[in-house]
């Protein structure tokens, strides 16, 4: 992903008020991490599993933080139990920032990821998680602001799935 696009993502998160981000690093969006790390606005929390990334974010959200959880698409499968228990069932807002590996528009899609990618939407819908697929940077700030407003309105996790231009 181009640095300019990574900066646009981070700037949009900041403008939407996201100030606490848990993460397991991945390949597609990884350029956002050094930018987030350098920006004192964010509390950046590295973790060992996407499962705890969701649960730590739930605790921080209940403590008043505006939380993002950055993960690879495979992490949605790893953390589905946590998304359901402390996210959907308990009703806790958080923004899932997902590198949508294996999706149709993933420019680096391989046999390693396709099976996860093509089933992602069904998995999110089965959990009742609202989502938006983002293919390029057009209107990015508004789309991220919409997702943050929706997560607060629903008091549930909302997912942004980054593919297309974000995967180059």
């Amino acid at each position, binding site marked *: 992903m181009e640095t300019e696009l990574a900066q646009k993502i981070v700037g949009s998160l900041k403008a939407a008020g996201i100030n606490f981000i848990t993460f397991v690093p991945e390949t597609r969006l990884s350029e956002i991490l050094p930018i987030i790390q350098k920006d004192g606005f964010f509390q950046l*929390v590295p973790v*060992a*599993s996407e499962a*705890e990334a969701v649960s*730590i974010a739930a605790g921080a959200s*209940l*403590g*008043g933080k505006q939380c993002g959880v950055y993960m690879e698409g495979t992490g949605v499968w790893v953390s589905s139990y946590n998304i359901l228990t402390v996210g959907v069932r308990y009703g806790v807002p958080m923004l899932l920032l997902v590198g949508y590996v294996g999706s149709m528009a993933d420019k680096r899609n391989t046999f390693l990821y396709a099976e996860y990618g093509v089933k992602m939407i069904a998995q999110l819908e089965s959990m009742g998680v609202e989502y938006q697929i983002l293919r390029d940077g057009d209107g990015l700030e508004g789309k991220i602001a919409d997702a943050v407003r929706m997560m607060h309105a629903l008091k549930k996790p909302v997912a942004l799935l980054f593919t297309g231009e974000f995967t180059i």
Partner: protein
Amino acid sequence: MIRYDCFEWLAPQMKDELVVTSLSGQRVEWGHFSKRDADLTLGSMGNALAVGMGLALALPHRKVFVFESDGSLLLSLFNLPTLANLNPPNLAVFVFDNQKYSGTRISWPTATAGKTDLAAVAKGAGVEHSVLIRDFEEFQREAGGALKESGLRFVVCKIEESLAHRNIVRSNFDLLETKYKFVRYLERSEGKPIFQGRG
């Protein structure tokens, strides 16, 4: 040592500390002794420690207690390296290890009934103050220390299996009610809004 006695001793000493509990008998027993809005009963396994970490990071000026069980922690062992590296000084974790999945009603043994020592696992993950205790006086020392002192504390309490919770009438508060009670308490005590949505 049984968990019921530990909670009976500790609950009256709590003031504005935040408490997160996992599932099973400890949720019922803690709820029996503590009726505070500062208690967050999650009603799920494998989440309490991580949620407690999130609260401790978000509110570094508040003391957070987490009550875990051996079965719940075994579901989320990846929490331990994260806990060690984040090292929140306002967090105290008590793992009530009865070496059984007592919620199953057949008391199937957990890994800690075999070779696994959760305090050693936490130590190996990098948690400096990780101890295993076996008697009530040690519990009083560790819990009393957690109330008074700063510093991450991870305490595995080897307890006898007790089925006291089965005789306690369970609360009819559902999870959402518990969450809102907790969040509204935090809003009052912190003087700031937690949830951002507006009508």
